[in-house]
């Protein structure tokens, strides 16, 4: 287990190290100003200073993105299920779902804050909006592409719509759903950061704007890199879950 983890991760690790190295050299070579693009070493230095004040921001954003992602997943799967099982509802409401992806934050923000106040709710709504869509689309795609022979069998056996869904269409869509989860998971952190611009006391987004407005670029980068790391961690977690859920695909597949 341990060795296989090392085996799986040394490549990307090396690549990232190389990338950071190149970046460091480039900033020094072309003497790029720190306020424009800080060198990795500057960022590390800054990170050291800033960690104690940064931690609460971090915690707040992680909480926000995890809850948003979970809500988004639930909503996305729920929406996909409803739209799949009720074709008329799908026809009728699909345009609204697309519309929901085209609400710019500058419009949504005042409305949400005015309706729901300065608390977590408007932020969760924004993250949910960002997360649910890829999941819903991928899940719907998976549901409709179910193997027709298996559908034939189920229908011949008199499976009810619910049985068809739970026993065949849903498990069949699992790989597609994971495609959607990966996309949504990746977005959730960024969506949380953006949602914090709606007015928050804490969070990576707040930290980032404060740093940006006082022109502390290294600090901005500390925030970004942390956001990236969280995002990668999310992605990794979803990958692990995927392995677990569709392990039947891997088994005996070592030709």
């Amino acid at each position, binding site marked *: 287990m341990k060795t296989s983890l090392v085996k799986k991760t040394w490549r990307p690790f090396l690549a990232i190290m190389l990338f950071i190295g190149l970046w460091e050299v480039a900033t020094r070579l072309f003497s790029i100003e720190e306020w424009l693009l800080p060198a990795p070493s500057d960022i590390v230095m800054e990170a050291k200073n800033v960690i104690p004040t940064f931690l609460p921001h971090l915690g707040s954003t992680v909480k926000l993105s995890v809850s948003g992602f979970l809500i988004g997943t639930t909503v996305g799967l729920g929406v996909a299920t409803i739209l799949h099982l009720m074709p008329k509802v799908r026809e009728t409401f699909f345009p609204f779902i697309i519309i929901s992806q085209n609400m710019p*934050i*500058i419009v949504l923000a005042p409305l949400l804050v005015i309706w729901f106040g300065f608390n977590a709710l408007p932020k969760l709504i924004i993250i949910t909006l960002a997360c649910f869509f890829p999941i819903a689309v991928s899940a719907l795609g998976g549901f409709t592409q179910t193997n027709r022979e298996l559908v034939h069998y189920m229908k011949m056996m008199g499976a009810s719509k619910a049985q068809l869904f739970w026993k065949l269409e849903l498990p069949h869509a699992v790989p597609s759903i994971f495609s959607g989860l990966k996309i949504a998971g990746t977005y959730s952190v960024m969506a949380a950061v953006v949602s914090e611009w709606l*007015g928050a006391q804490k969070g990576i987004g707040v930290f980032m704007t404060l740093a940006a*407005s006082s*022109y*502390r670029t290294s600090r901005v980068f500390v925030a970004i890199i942390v956001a990236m790391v969280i995002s990668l961690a999310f992605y990794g977690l979803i990958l692990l879950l995927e392995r677990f859920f569709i392990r039947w695909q891997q088994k005996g597949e070592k030709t």
Partner: protein
Amino acid sequence: GQSNENKGNNEDNNADLTPVTFALDWTPNTNHTGIYVAKEKGYFEEQGLDVEILLPGEVGVNQLLAAERADFGISYQEGLTQARSEGLPLVSIAAVLQHNTAGYASPVEKGITSPKDFEGKKFGAYGSDLEKAMMKTLMENDNADVEEVDYITTGDSDFFVAVERDVDFSLVFYGWTGIEAELRGVDLNMVYLADFSDELDYYTPIIATSEEMISTDPELVKAFTHAAVKGYEFAVEHPEDAAQILIDHVPDLDPDLVKRSQDWISPRYQDDADQFGTQEQERWQKFADFLLEYEIIDEPVDIEQAFTNEFLPKK
């Protein structure tokens, strides 16, 4: 403003205080120092207020005030006038800076020292009509042709990025961006709006509230204004202590920038006025006329209702 209703405060020491929310216009900066001082020094508490400071981010402060999601906030005359013309019931209750500190900044090597020099140069624009109107006025006053200026819309890019690439000059507030340039050792030429046109010496920033607030609880408005003014007056007299208070409250800001900015800005809060926060009707009127003339607002604005000095402490 000793309204006695308890709005469920959980901290025991301010159980009888009236909760008040105050929205900033942007991230905290030295325009806001007085508010932080009043909070830190207990001026608000003296007036029976428990002030919470909100960072509304992308949510416009004027909308928040108009929708009564915040009680008071930092606004600016150009925004408030436009907002009123669109029907947002806002009132300015104090000017934070007596004179407009906005101006066209450019690195010295570009040699831009007066509006005349704008000709043939590239202006990093936000893209609004107001901006064009201001430049036009300024250049006409200096007998220059506004058509000769090259507009480059720079969107969200900050000043330093813009001048690094393609852009020669841009509109900034000296008290923050200019100070940052000093810190970086970039020498700037400034062409202040107020120096070249009376009508553009508008008040920015200001402290604003809604008409609703004023009519339902004028005492509260008065209490708030008094405490805030006291805070700014402290900042006028003790720039260093005031700066430290801001830094303590918002440790994520650059302390050097805050300190130098505070030094620069403290004498400018009150400036030539007889008291902090006073606003002159003439300046409001001139600017409103200017906006109307350039069709930036469609409806004339009743200046009488747009601002008031009524809540300032009487000296």
